[in-house]
Structures are given as structure tokens and as C-alpha cells.
């Protein structure tokens, strides 16, 4: 039997559920098809940061501002705290070279409207008394926030269902066709068929494979991230933290930063956030290892050693879990959002890499506007899937 809808969303991670929620809110009949279960993808194995400081001025930073405002209104709309909190964030600076790059970056971000400053060592230590002595300064932004991804996904699904959205688990999409009427016919591994005039590919790191089912090209690579979760502990400092080192190498690829071979291979960067449950999430790695989402001894050990070298009191803290997820990474570091020129009615919303939690609400909202009103901002042009060449293979 074929079931008919207005929109089929493929992938039930935070992006697929956000798209489903905002589409349903605009009156569409939506089904979200997820190959696994709840929170099976990256959205169930990640940190919880809504970060501004890591973003280069441009579309990502702009959308992050809008997403933060949406998060604030979602707390009421979805009738849940969503683990939303606003502890602010600090980027830790180890030496003069990093300081120079960060000073310039902070200036750029300020001119873009981000509330961020450089703190002296004394001011930094006042907010973070447990830091290792070696840090010479830090940035501080009161805007950096966080939300609990499981709660966000769960409440998108709950509210969506109340309005008629369907979420079907254990339904890997294995075939996508366009039939004579111009509708899409989507087949799952169970041989269930779904029909709709619109399809949204929100399959995260798997979005390339899903696009491939209808002959489209979406270059997407899984980038593994491992993190550890501590027991409940007394607070360490006032804000969430991460290291300038990673940001500096991203901003100024030419600059010499002393990293060990292991650090480079693992793409190790320090990130520390306090959860609503008083545990800490400590990360993380950024590795290209295909679709392998296991944790590794090497990764966990490197994260722990790094964490203790940043905050020595952590040496006496137990970690209770280690998890890994696959970030969806595009070649140019920007998400893919929009309709494919070759196949009208087929949209992709994926490729958020390390920003999918921050950007989920705005992604869903923009996608719903595109589908429902055929509307797309000119500023979103740079996110269009059509930016990747050899895309336009006409399917009838």
C-alpha cells in the first residue's frame, strides 16, 4: 500500500525533526522516515553547544543568531526547558601567536554584532579558577548557550505528532523515484511506499547516499567525533570552555602550531560543557574514518590527557561513558540547504558538521518556508545544493 503525504522527510535526527516540525506547523502532512531509532545519528552522540565564537562572520554566524532566538521561543512553544542554558563561553589562549590571531578574529566578530571580548589572565582566572597556569588570556562571550539535543528532538517529535506529524523508525529509505504525476515515490527496506510532491533529504552524514538514490550529487563526508561524559561533579568555573588552538589552525592554516602527530590524526580539540544533569561533556576528536562510529582507546585516552592538562582537578574525576557520532561534513564547511535544480521538489537539509545543534531550529524554519512558499532568501544562495558541479542530472 502506498501512503500519501505532502512532504517526506528522510532522516530523523535533529535536522529532520526540526524540518518535520516546522513543516507540520505550516499545515503540511509530513512523515519522517528514520532508518534506525530515536537519536541514532550524530544528534544522539554530540555536545550541546550553541556556539557563536567559533563562527566566522558570514552566513553561519548570521543564522546562529537567528537560531538562538528561535530556541528561546521554542522553550515556550514545545513546553519544555529543552535544557536551554546560557552560561557563556570562553576560548582559552596558550601563547602570543594564538592571542594575535584571536584578537583579530574577535574584532571581526564584534563588528558583526557578537558580544565578545578578550579577558586578561586575571579576569580569566576569576571566571575559571581551576585552569592550568599556562593560559595567558581568553575570550569571553555571554552569548554562547546550550540546549540538550535529546530533549529538543523529543519535543519536536512530541509537538509535531500532536499536530499530525508521523515519525516512522526502522525504515531505511532504499529507493526514490519520480512517477508520471511528478510525485516522488519513496521505498523503504520493508517495501513500504510513501508518495509526496516534496522530499527533504535530512540524512546527515548519509545525505550523499540518499541523494545518490535519485542521481543527485551531495558531497558529504562523515567526520567522527568522540566525547566522554563525567560523573556529576561540583561546578568547574562559570562558563563553557574550548581551546583556541583548533580555531587558530582553522582560521590561519599557515600558522605554525605545535601539535603532536596523534593530535593531528585525531583532530583533537578541547571542549568542555556542563550539562543540565551536572555531568560534564568533554571532547572531542574530528576524524575521517568512514562510517565507523565506534569509540577508540586512543581517542578516549587523548581526550582525557588533554582535559587534565587544561583543568588539573579533572584527574580525580571519573568518566562514566564515551560516545562517538558522525558529523556531516561538506567540502566547503557550509551546510547544504535548498532545492535541487535538477529535480524539482527535492530538497536537501544536511551538512552542518559541528553546528547542527546550534542551527537546527533555523534550518527547519528556512526549509519549511522554502517548501511551503517557494520562498528563498538571496543570502541562502551560497548554501544551495546547486553549488556543487555536475549536479543537474534531469530526472523525469
Amino acid at each position, binding site marked *: 500500500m502506498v501512503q500519501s503525504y505532502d512532504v517526506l522527510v528522510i532522516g530523523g535526527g535533529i535536522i529532520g525533526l526540526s524540518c518535520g516540525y516546522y513543516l507540520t506547523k505550516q499545515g503540511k502532512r509530513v512523515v519522517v522516515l528514520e532508518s534506525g531509532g530515536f537519536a541514532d545519528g550524530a544528534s544522539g552522540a554530540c555536545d550541546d553547544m550553541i556556539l557563536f565564537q567559533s563562527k566566522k562572520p558570514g552566513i553561519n554566524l548570521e543564522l546562529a543568531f537567528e537560531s538562538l532566538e528561535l530556541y528561546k521561543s521554542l522553550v515556550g512553544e514545545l513546553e519544555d526547558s529543552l535544557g536551554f542554558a546560557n552560561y557563556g563561553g570562553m576560548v582559552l589562549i596558550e601563547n602570543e601567536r594564538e592571542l594575535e590571531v584571536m584578537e583579530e578574529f574577535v574584532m571581526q566578530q564584534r563588528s558583526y554584532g557578537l558580544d565578545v571580548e578578550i579577558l586578561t589572565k586575571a579576569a580569566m582566572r576569576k571566571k575559571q579558577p581551576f585552569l592550568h597556569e599556562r593560559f595567558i588570556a581568553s575570550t569571553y562571550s555571554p552569548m554562547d548557550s546550550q540546549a540538550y539535543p535529546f530533549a529538543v528532538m523529543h519535543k519536536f517529535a512530541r509537538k509535531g505528532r500532536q499536530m499530525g506529524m508521523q515519525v516512522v523508525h526502522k525504515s531505511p529509505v532504499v529507493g526514490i523515484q519520480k512517477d508520471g504525476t511528478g510525485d516522488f515515490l519513496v521505498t523503504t527496506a520493508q517495501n513500504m511506499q510513501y508518495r509526496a510532491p516534496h522530499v527533504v533529504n535530512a540524512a546527515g552524514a548519509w545525505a550523499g547516499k540518499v541523494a545518490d538514490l535519485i542521481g543527485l550529487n551531495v558531497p558529504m563526508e562523515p567526520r567522527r567525533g568522540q566525547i566522554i561524559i563525567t560523573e*556529576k*561533579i*561540583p561546578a568547574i568555573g562559570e562558563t563553557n570552555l574550548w581551546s583556541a588552538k583548533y580555531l587558530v589552525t582553522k582560521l590561519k592554516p599557515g600558522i605554525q602550531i605545535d601539535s603532536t602527530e596523534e593530535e593531528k590524526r585525531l583532530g583533537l580539540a578541547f571542549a568542555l560543557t556542563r550539562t543540565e544533569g551536572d555531568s560534564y561533556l568533554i571532547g572531542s576528536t574530528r576524524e575521517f574514518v568512514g562510517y565507523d562510529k565506534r569509540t577508540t582507546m586512543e581517542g578516549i585516552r587523548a581526550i582525557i590527557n588533554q582535559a587534565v592538562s587544561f583543568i588539573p*582537578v579533572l584527574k580525580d*574525576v571519573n568518566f562514566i561513558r564515551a560516545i562517538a557520532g558522525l558529523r556531516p561534513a561538506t567540502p566547503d564547511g557550509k551546510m547544504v540547504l535548498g532545492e535541487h535544480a535538477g529535480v524539482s521538489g527535492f530538497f536537501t537539509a544536511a551538512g552542518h558538521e559541528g553546528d547542527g545543534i546550534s542551527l537546527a531550529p533555523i534550518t527547519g524554519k528556512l526549509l519549511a518556508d522554502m517548501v511551503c512558499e517557494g520562498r528563498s532568501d538571496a543570502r541562502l544562495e551560497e548554501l544551495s545544493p546547486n553549488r556543487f558541479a555536475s549536479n543537474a542530472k534531469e530526472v523525469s
Partner: protein
Amino acid sequence: MQRIIEHPVLGPLPEVPMVKIIVDGEQMEAREGEMIAAALIATGKKYFRKTIKTHEPRGIYCGIGRCTDCVMTVNGIPNVRTCITPVEEGMVIETQMGYGVWKQEQ
């Protein structure tokens, strides 16, 4: 002192040197090598911490390092499982409120 001096299976309690520990500011004696929890129970202390939300007293529960019910602040480190941590001469042991606090001089 509440100790089993004559155990039906293990026999008599062997002689061992004693160490001094400080529990909530009070000096006490413990048998060298025994776990903090054992030493405290021997002194009659029943609660080791209070829970963070409802401030209920907690003490030993599993006794084998799994449940974390017995945690205290030991030498300034919060959340130490006292049932699997041996006493040491001069050890400072404190009843913990909630998750405790970090002592800064680490």
C-alpha cells in the same frame, strides 16, 4: 568502637598498626589498610553525605565501589568512593553536601 573481634569463619581480628585520620575536623583512629567506610562504621558514623536536592543522609550501600552512595570529600577531592579507598595517615575526610566543592590548592 564497633568491630567484629572474633569472626566465625575468618577467626580473630589480626593485630595491625593504627593510623590517624581526621573526620569532619575530629581526629580518629583507623586500622592501616582498611577502607575509609569500614573505619567510619567502626566509629559509629552512619551517614557520609547528604543528597543534593532533598538533603537526605546516605551511607554505605553496595560496599564494592559501584553505586557511589558512599562518596565523601577526601583530602579536598569530592566524590571519593569511601568503600574502596583505603585510609592513609593524616587523611582528611569530610561529610559531603551534594556534589561537594573543589578545594582550590590542587
